[in-house]
């Protein structure tokens, strides 16, 4: 506050250096005026109190939940459709499930929707199972692809069951950041009642949903 009040006076002094002209009286008047202003400002500033502040900085960032399928090729054979499937056939496709988020997960689930009534039939329709291998599944051939035995550790991720699934938990080897090598196997039962399953095309949507780990103290 003081500094601000002094400033106009200083500026004024620099401007007028003629001592023996009207400058002196003008300076006097100006000074009076400035004193008046200072008095008024001081009058306004009567809330002054002794205070002191101290501070500390803190940073917080949130993590991410991100689940992705392999882009294409050997890490995503979902893009290869299966055609002319006959009763008793088996279809296999490998796909990588990438857990890309920074947060560990509490759950990854699979929902399979779509298809057609005949193929969705829980007795005679398609069955699905999902396995995981700790290393990439050894792939041979071109469409149709076949896969050798897992050379690492194999485990069942989704037990053999109906193709339609609703938020079925996948029993993955780990819910932490990283890649899970999955192998999907579909079978059309050999006992399928042929007329009902013949000439059908089912388009299915596979949705993988990931949920964060439970809250904790950090």
């Amino acid at each position, binding site marked *: 506050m003081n500094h601000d009040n002094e400033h106009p006076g200083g500026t004024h002094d620099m401007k007028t250096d003629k001592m023996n002209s009207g400058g*002196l*009286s*003008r300076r006097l*008047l100006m000074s009076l005026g400035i004193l008046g202003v200072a008095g008024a400002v001081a009058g306004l500033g009567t809330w002054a*109190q*002794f*205070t*002191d*502040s*101290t*501070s*500390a*900085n*803190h*940073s*917080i*960032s*949130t*993590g*991410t*939940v991100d689940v992705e399928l392999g882009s294409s090729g050997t890490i995503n054979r979902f893009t290869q459709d299966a055609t002319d499937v006959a009763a008793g056939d088996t279809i296999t496709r490998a796909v990588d499930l990438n857990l890309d*988020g*920074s*947060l560990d997960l509490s759950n990854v689930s699979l929902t399979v929707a779509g298809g057609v009534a005949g193929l969705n039939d829980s007795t005679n329709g398609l069955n699905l199972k999902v396995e995981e291998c700790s290393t990439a599944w050894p792939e041979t051939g071109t469409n149709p692809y076949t896969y050798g035995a897992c050379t690492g550790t194999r485990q069942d991720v989704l037990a053999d069951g109906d193709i339609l699934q609703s938020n079925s938990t996948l029993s993955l080897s780990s819910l932490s950041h990283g890649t899970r090598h999955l192998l999907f196997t579909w079978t059309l039962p050999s006992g399928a009642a042929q007329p009902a399953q013949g000439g059908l095309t089912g388009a299915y949507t596979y949705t993988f949903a990931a949920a*964060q*780990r*439970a*809250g*904790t*103290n*950090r």
Partner: protein
Amino acid sequence: MTWFTTGARGRLALSAGVVALAAALAGLSTWATFTDSTQGTHSIATGTVDIDVGTAGTADNRLDVAVGAMAPGDSAERALTLHNSSTLALSGIAVSTSASTSSLLDTDSTNGLRMAIDRCSVAWTETPLANGGYSYACSGTTSTVLAERALAMSAQPLTNVDLAPGGGIVRLRIRTRLPTSAGNAFQGLATSFDMSFTATQRNATNR
């Protein structure tokens, strides 16, 4: 302005001369008279308001330990000691936050970060966590210093703090929490903020 002419200045100069003459005469008047004088001494000292946070990087101030990869439902506890060395009693201590890196975490007052402050009558028992954070337990008495509220705040008064002169040490535990209502829009965000504590003197009184 025009009334203030050269004549007035002349009068001013003349008055100055008269005053100078009077002073000179007074200097000459060394004739003795009965006099007496007495004196007392009086000194006035102002008090101080002085408040400081503990040294960062010690158990007195863990706010320098950032919280990374927080998820909804997570909470983080950090200790912070306030040293009050004021010689004056205080009317209050208030806390404000100011975000230098801002995001929904500090701008969303419903689903963003929540903060609560407790104090312990004795030093907090600190337990380091495997994830780099800390948890705290109080073997004395805990009391609420700031009820949980949104992170962004301005001059919120602290409760249950000692305002007496030289109020000593206030051991705070600052707890931030991301509500489970924070949705996907809160993924991958960061906020960095200053917590400022301002102490204000007691009300003026007759001394």
